[in-house]
């Protein structure tokens, strides 16, 4: 089953940056997502979703998937990430 790795980045506290003590990661199975969310994810990877300019202190999400061609990763603003992906991550301290 295809898995998506999700990481939450940025925000007022600078999640996930170099040296950051806060990391926020999660994982979801593509088949666990609704058909609409699966389409939304595919559109994000295919560059079909209009990406708004970054907003101050808004979160961004790095979404990674394994394909036959290798690992593919995108980084997109919170606005365009389906809630099922956003809610999959857990904030932890290192």
């Amino acid at each position: 089953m295809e898995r998506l790795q999700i990481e939450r980045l940025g925000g007022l506290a600078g999640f996930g940056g170099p040296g950051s003590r806060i990391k926020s990661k999660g994982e979801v199975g593509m088949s666990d997502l609704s058909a609409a969310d699966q389409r939304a994810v595919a559109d994000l990877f295919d560059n079909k979703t209009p990406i708004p300019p970054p907003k101050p202190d808004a979160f961004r999400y790095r979404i990674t998937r394994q394909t036959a061609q290798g690992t593919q990763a995108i980084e997109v603003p919170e606005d365009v990430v389906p809630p099922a992906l956003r809610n999959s991550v857990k904030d932890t301290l290192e």
Partner: protein
Amino acid sequence: MCTCFIVPRDILTKLSQDPRLPPDIRKAAADTARVAQEIRDLRIQALRLTSIATMIQAPVTAIAAAPAITVFDCGHTQSLPGRPISGPQAGDDSAKRAFDETTQVAKFYKDVFGRNSIDNAGMTMMSSIHYGNRFNNAMWNGTQMLYGDGDNAIFVDFTLGNDVIGHELTHGVTQHSLQLEYTDDAGGLNESLSDCFGSMFRQWEKGQDAAAADWLIGSDIIGPSARDRNITCLRDMADPAGAHCLAPQPTQYSQITPGMDPHYSSGPPNLAFYTACKTLGGKSWEKIGQVWYRVMTTFGPSPRMKIPEFANRTRQVAGQMFGGTPDVGDAIEQGWSAVGLSRSEGAAIA
């Protein structure tokens, strides 16, 4: 619902009228469509005001009334703006803080810098509290502030930080002045200005001079599990790389790389501001803060501004404002030297 509307309004309206859908889904779609339109109208209004106010700033400032302060309750959802709250007496501590501290930020900008609200034309200062479920963030979304409650482990309620409220409102001021983008050097400057004015606001409320201030950002929103790990702040303007910071930052301009998150590239300009204020002594907002404010508001939009260019403008403005008091220019020079951007180093980069 998110702050950017990826589902067109006509589709939401259709969904809200689709008898095959359960009533709660239909209601959510109807609510989303209505709010989406309101937010869209607000954005258009804000954009229009940004350009008009930039063109005719002085006359608008003169006639505009003091800003209205409004607070909405998202009820732990991400639906914006949420339910209106009548006033600070409504019985919700987060609401009271959002009303009171936003009012104070308006007063700070008015009394200290002569600025009338975010756009210098009396724009309503709008906040939504209880945004999201245990949401570990606060932000400025282009038209309003949003505050999460925090998870009560790493963070507590984001309205507990008066510097956080000053930080978010200053993103609005930057949007209506320098209009800095949010990437590379410009992004770092954008973040740094919010930290500088957020910290100055905190010092102003406490009546602290540069020596008494702690120069921490977000120290009042750090939750118990972060404190257990000796984390005391998001960032420390006096010691950006400190291990007590949730997100330690670089201290030298040479460490900034393209694509770096603005919350990291703000480290060197934060340290330059702190060093200048500490070197000069006295209250940060009285002289160094005045120079930073003039650089922010009197040159017109500079969306891709580089940090060395900002440094040069602070030198120029310090000469204009405090030419008879060379201590101010000297302190600013020490500030930029501390981050590898002395006059000669800056010239070599340019």
